[in-house]
């Protein structure tokens, strides 16, 4: 049922129910009563008007019978006392109005003829027609019309009474309702306010008192019971929550303060929790990591073994333990033991940084290996010394210590030459300086250096009387290169050849032993040793000579050219300023002086180029000979102008060599070919290469002046010429250069020719 007053309180509603019930009851009663009253009253009125008509008929029948209308009017006028009669009339038997009465001040219309006997109500009047009978004969008809004012008056007075009754009834009903309503609504209102209090203040201690034994009483009991239960539940919940909170806190602080890294990852690999250690291990702050995924933070991690294991643990819900090397963005790495446990949120990872431990382990293994290796090295049956680049001793074999009569403690971490000085009593001692030079060579060249046999005396320990003991050694010094190619150590290996030297010397000086091959062998050995010593000396001399040559060519370039310049300069000044005082002969002499000076300058320059060609470092590279020759011919093309030259060139290979040097070779050979074929009408130059015995043999052939094979050996000498410079210009250094360059490429040069028929120049390069 629809609630008509959803917002009214229950008290109001109860009152309204009682009052409206009372109101309706009274109204229905009054309505019934009024209806009944109306019906009854109308009947009374009809009887009353009929009685009046009867009285008038009694009184008027004589006047009617005698047609005495005046009398009739008199009778009718008696109606005047009847205040509700509006009008009255008497009709004759024929239906003619005989007499009429009308209430004063009223205009009334009478019907033309009377109706048969009847009584009826019109709108506001009661109308009556009644026959006047004399002895049963109708002699006329009475007509009466009466107003209904009386009825109305009665009706209104009834209404007034009814209203009074209604008011009284309602007043009583209200009083009764007020009392009754309280007994019903009070418990409900209390219940309602209790509920409100609970819902607003969460105060579950509220109870309602039971007032009646009816349903509200039951309701109150039930409510109280329910609240008690809720109160208990609530208390339980609170305790449980607190316990949970404590547990959670304890667990968080435990994780936070753990020595291992702890982290919880969601199923999408998002960081849900991590402690400081885990953040430190991950090299990101907590703020950076939390809420982000592992893939975002460590791009490329998807490919790692760790991630695959992590996925497996996540998917299959299994715990996984592993050791993992984690690579950071800067390509450094750390080692971790990882315990991966599935948890409801995803996975929990417990990580322990074992980088240091790993390092330590590796170092320990390395150290052990080294110890083993060192022991091995020290017991090796050879004489070894390990030097650092600054020549401090960092290791020595037992055999070495024994041979040099020293101990490890005395020499380790000390400079080689502090420990092993030259014998001060030997004025010719050069052992230490030779060793120094050898070590220097090792450091300069990064390659081994084998020294000839050295006399390098050793110090006798004090226990054996001190002083020096004569010793001969055959040393080899070898570098140990680090990964970057730098020298990390030098290994100095020696053999004690003192015995051998003593023996050799004895034999060399001693009497001949006619019998033995032994003797012969020893002699040969001694000779070999002597040769070795000689070779070393020669080598040194050669080096010095080379250096001298270098400084010589430098001073040639600088010092020889200066006076030449002065000769030419002053000769020209002389010619210019003292022109008049010189005759033709004098002038010619001056010109010759100038020319000669210039010529000599040119010679010096060429000589310098030649010497530089011998000294310059070779820049070995791939050289496409085809391209080189084409280039050189392009450069020489001005010389070929206005000449008929046919060049037949076959395809040339790519060789290994110094590009600029090889270019110079071609330049010299081709310009020679151009030059010496200048006097031939139709010059033909042929260029080819053949592979003969694993060698490339290149040759340039011309049909020019040629040469006499008698002098072929002079072709490649410096400043050697087979033609006068009036015939062909030149200073005779080009082929010398060719020779030198090809020699440096480990090739050969030679030439064939015949005077007047041309020449062929060959050079070979290793294929």
């Amino acid at each position, binding site marked *: 049922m629809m609630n008509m007053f959803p917002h009214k309180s229950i008290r109001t509603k109860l009152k309204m129910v009682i009052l409206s019930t009372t109101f309706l009851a009274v109204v229905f009663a009054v309505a019934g009563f009024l209806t009944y009253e109306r019906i009854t009253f109308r009947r009374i009125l009809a009887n009353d008007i009929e009685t009046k008509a009867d009285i008038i008929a009694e009184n008027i029948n004589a006047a009617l019978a005698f047609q005495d209308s005046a009398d009739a009017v008199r009778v009718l006028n008696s109606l005047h006392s009847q205040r509700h009669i509006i009008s009255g009339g008497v009709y004759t038997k024929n239906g003619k109005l005989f007499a009429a009465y009308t209430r004063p001040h009223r205009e009334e219309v009478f019907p033309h003829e009377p109706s048969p006997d009847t009584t009826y109500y019109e709108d506001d009047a009661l109308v009556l027609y009644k026959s006047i009978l004399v002895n049963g004969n109708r002699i006329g008809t009475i007509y009466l019309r009466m107003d209904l004012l009386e009825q109305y008056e009665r009706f209104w007075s009834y209404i007034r009474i009814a209203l009074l009754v209604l008011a009284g009834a309602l007043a009583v009903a209200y009083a009764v309702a007020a009392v009754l309503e309280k007994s019903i609504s009070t418990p409900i209102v209390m219940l309602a306010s209790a509920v409100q209090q609970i819902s607003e203040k969460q105060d579950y201690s509220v109870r309602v008192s039971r007032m009646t034994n009816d349903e509200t009483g039951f309701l109150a009991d039930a409510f109280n019971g329910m609240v008690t239960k809720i109160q208990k539940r609530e208390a339980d919940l609170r305790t449980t929550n607190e316990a949970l909170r404590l547990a959670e806190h304890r667990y968080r602080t435990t994780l936070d303060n753990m020595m291992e890294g702890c982290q919880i990852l969601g199923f999408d690999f998002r960081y849900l929790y991590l402690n400081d250690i885990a953040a430190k291990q991950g090299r990101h702050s907590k703020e950076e990591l939390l809420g982000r995924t592992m893939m975002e933070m460590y791009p490329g991690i998807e490919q790692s073994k760790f991630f695959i294991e992590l996925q497996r643990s996540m998917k299959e819900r299994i715990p996984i333990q592993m050791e993992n090397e984690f690579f950071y963005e800067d390509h450094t790495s750390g080692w971790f033991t990882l315990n991966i446990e599935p948890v409801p949120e995803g996975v929990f990872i417990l990580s322990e940084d074992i980088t240091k431990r790993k390092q330590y382990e590796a170092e320990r293994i390395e150290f052990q290996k080294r110890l083993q290796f060192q022991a091995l090295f020290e017991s090796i049956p050879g004489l070894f010394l390990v030097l650092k680049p600054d020549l401090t001793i960092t290791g020595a074999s037992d055999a070495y210590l024994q041979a040099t009569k020293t101990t490890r403690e005395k020499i380790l971490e000390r400079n080689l030459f502090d420990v092993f000085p030259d014998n001060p009593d030997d004025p010719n001692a050069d052992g230490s300086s030779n060793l120094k030079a050898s070590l220097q060579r090792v450091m300069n060249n990064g390659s081994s250096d084998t020294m000839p046999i050295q006399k390098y005396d050793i110090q006798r320990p004090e226990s054996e009387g001190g002083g020096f003991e004569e010793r001969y050694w055959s040393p080899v010094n070898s570098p140990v290169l680090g990964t970057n190619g730098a020298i990390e150590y030098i290994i100095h290996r020696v053999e004690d050849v003192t015995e051998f030297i003593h023996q050799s010397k004895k034999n060399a000086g001693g009497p001949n032993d006619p019998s033995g091959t032994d003797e012969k062998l020893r002699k040969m050995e001694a000779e070999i040793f002597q040769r070795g010593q000689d070779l070393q000396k020669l080598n040194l001399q050669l080096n010095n000579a080379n250096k001298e040559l270098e400084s010589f060519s*430098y001073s040639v*370039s*600088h*010092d020889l*050219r*200066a006076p*030449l*310049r*002065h000769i*030419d*300069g*002053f*000769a*020209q*000044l002389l010619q210019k300023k003292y022109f008049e005082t010189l005759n033709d002969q004098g002038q010619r002499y001056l010109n010759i002086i*100038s020319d000669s*000076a*210039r010529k*000599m*300058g040119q010679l010096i*320059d060429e000589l*310098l180029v030649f010497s*530089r060609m011998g000294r310059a470092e070779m820049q070995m590279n791939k050289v496409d000979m085809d391209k080189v020759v084409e280039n050189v011919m392009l450069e020489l093309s001005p010389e070929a102008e206005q000449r008929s030259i046919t060049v037949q060139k076959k395809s040339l290979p790519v060789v290994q060599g110094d590009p600029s040097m090889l270019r110079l070779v071609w330049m010299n050979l081709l310009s020679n070919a151009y030059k010496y074929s200048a006097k031939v009408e139709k010059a033909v130059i042929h260029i080819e290469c053949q592979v003969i015995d694993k060698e490339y043999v290149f040759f340039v052939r011309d049909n020019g002046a040629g040469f006499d094979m008698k002098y072929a050996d002079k072709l490649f000498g410096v400043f050697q010429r087979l033609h006068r410079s009036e015939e062909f210009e030149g200073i005779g250094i080009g082929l010398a250069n060719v020779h030198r360059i090809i020699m440096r490429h480990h090739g050969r040069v030679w030439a064939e020719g015949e005077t007047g028929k041309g020449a062929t120049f060959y050079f070979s390069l290793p294929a």
Partner: protein
Amino acid sequence: MKGLKSILFAEDNEHDIELTLEALSEHNLMNEVITVRDGEEALNYLYKRGKYQDRQSSNPAVILLDLKMPKVDGLEVLRRIKGDDTLKTIPVVMLTTSREESDLLNSYHYGVNAYVVKPVDFQEFLSAVKQLGVFWAILNETPQDPKQGASDSKPVVR
């Protein structure tokens, strides 16, 4: 000649000095040529020491340096000039007999402005010195000498 910058010429060989001065005068270069006989003297001139302690003139427009000189050689003088903030803007031209690669490389390493090998042929020498003089003492612009202020020092050719 006030305002016209000088040329500092360091050369130990008297013949070379004579020929070079001859070549410069041949081309009517009006810049004063200060000749010093070794590297030490060149540095004394530049640092206003010894007999040059009262030098009033501004720094030279160009320094012509021989490589091989007694006491302090040309490379060392060059190194000192180019290593000194107050001198390094002065152009230095090596005028030498040496064609050695190492001399060339070292000179450029220390920041030489030009390297000229003296030709044996006197005619070529004349033309080389002329070009050097005209280019470095006249055509080439250098920053103002800080000690001299903004005096107008446009060179003049007679």
